């Protein structure tokens, strides 16, 4: 029996204001993520991947606007929540992993302070010490050595690969239902890419989280995701099991992606 849908995006349509006209950059995008499942969203740059991530979190830039559609997290439509409720859900139930960990962190706060403020914002009223213990525990879970020391460091004192795993821990610390990872390995070298991917894979399997993994690299997705959706100029042109898509691509654009991925191996 298939487990029920955790995150269900239905007919999402996003417009961007260009002068006085509205230009549609995401059209009728539907995605479904089940519990414990990784959905790989693949597409070239400019196809609207990052906008979809932003729309899921309710963090579209001011010029962009959701025109139609639903984003159902279990049965709650995130697009119709008041900002206050949405803030409570962001980070706690649907968490985000950024593309470039270095610019995403506040350079003047330590790793520990990032954890403290995130936990605090979501109503963790425990003492500072309890919250820090929470942070150390999850850092150890993502396989970082000497987690106790890491919480005292500033972001720029860590390597990119380590920092990305710290941010994965930061996303997972509140045990969200869904992780949204926007090209989490783009800024990393191949060794660290593998570490980060396996870290994400284990986390989802262990906690039964759903994950939307965004990338332009089908080959990379094939190491992590079971389902995939191919995005091309704002539309989903193909979707299904990743192995089927890889074996028998239907759309011309997908074929190009598959060829690119195969030539890499």
């Amino acid at each position, binding site marked *: 029996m298939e487990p029920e849908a955790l995150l269900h995006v239905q007919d999402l349509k996003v417009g961007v204001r260009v002068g006085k006209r509205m230009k549609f950059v995401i059209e009728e995008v539907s995605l479904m993520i089940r519990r414990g499942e990784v959905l790989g969203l693949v597409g070239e740059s400019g196809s609207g991947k990052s906008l979809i991530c932003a729309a899921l979190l309710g963090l579209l830039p001011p010029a962009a606007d959701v025109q139609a559609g639903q984003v159902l997290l279990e049965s709650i439509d995130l697009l119709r929540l008041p900002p206050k409720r949405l803030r409570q859900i962001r980070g706690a139930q649907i968490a985000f992993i950024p593309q470039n960990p270095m610019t995403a962190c506040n350079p003047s706060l330590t790793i520990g302070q990032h954890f403290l403020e995130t936990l605090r914002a979501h109503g963790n009223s425990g003492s500072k010490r309890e919250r820090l213990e929470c942070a150390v525990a999850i850092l150890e879970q993502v396989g970082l050595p000497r987690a106790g020391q890491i919480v005292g460091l*500033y972001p720029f004192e860590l390597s990119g690969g380590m920092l990305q795993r710290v941010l994965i821990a930061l996303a997972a610390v509140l045990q969200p239902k869904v992780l949204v990872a926007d090209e989490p390995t783009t800024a990393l070298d191949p060794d660290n890419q593998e570490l980060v991917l396996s870290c994400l894979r284990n986390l989802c399997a262990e906690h039964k989280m759903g994950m939307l993994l965004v990338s332009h690299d089908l080959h990379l997705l094939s190491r992590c995701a079971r389902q995939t959706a191919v995005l091309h100029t704002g539309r989903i042109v193909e979707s299904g099991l990743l192995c089927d898509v890889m074996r028998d691509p239907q759309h011309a654009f997908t074929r190009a992606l598959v060829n690119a991925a195969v030539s890499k191996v």
Partner: protein
Amino acid sequence: MLAAASLVTFLLVHLVPVDPAEAYLQASKIPVTPSAVAAARMELGLDQPWAVQFANWLWRVLHADFGFSYLSRQPVWQEMMTHMPATLELTAAAICWVMMLALPIGIYTALKRGTLADQAGRLFAYIGASLPSYWIGYLLLYAFALRWNLLPVTGSGTFAHLLLPSFTLALGHIAIVSRLLRSTLLEELNKPYVLYARARGLHERTIFWRHVLRHALAPVVTAIGMSAGHLLAGAVLVENVFAWPGLGRYFVTAVFSRDYPVIQCYVLLLTAMFVGANLLVDVVQIMLNPRLHAVKGGSRR
């Protein structure tokens, strides 16, 4: 830095076409005759080579001995020190004005950008930055002291006396600092760490006060520190408008009567304060930015 400034200060006085000995005689109300000039030269050491004069002067300066004022025949250093507190009081009050007004204006106009309040802030900044302080000073005097009789006209001593001169002095700096804060705030608000903080579900006020403001303040601290030096120098004009018994007024009197020792001492003192203010700014910067003090070694791997 200070050594170079002292050399320039020394040369400045000796490069102007007026003979210091004549100036000394005029200031001392002694008739200028050739024999008197020769005597004055001997007394002031002006007959010695320049290098020797400079070395002697520098040696005495290092012992806080700036010679005697031609005008009052009092030790210059002592007179400087009696005028100093008034100027420091004025400058400190002006910095208070800057912080009290520029920070809220900068924050408010950044948060309400594009609104009427933002436009008003912009207009205020243009006006504040372009009007000369001596003119604004007279306007304020006319309005508050003469027309509405709210504040004393000139002089010093009470808190009420301090309000107008310090505000006049601060106005241009309020304008500059508030605009600077607004633009750095808007720049910081667009940085990726703000988006990531939102994605983690932090409260908007946490993001603004804890993350954004802290980063936006760094250049503002520099600007305020730099303006401390300019405020001290700007006090020359304001002190004359408001008859404030500080260094600036003392200096202007000295300039008119070519009281060279006083001029030299003032210029050197001001340079020292400029340098001091910049040093203070660097210290505050280090306190604000962990990247500058977190190089503790061994923690990187």
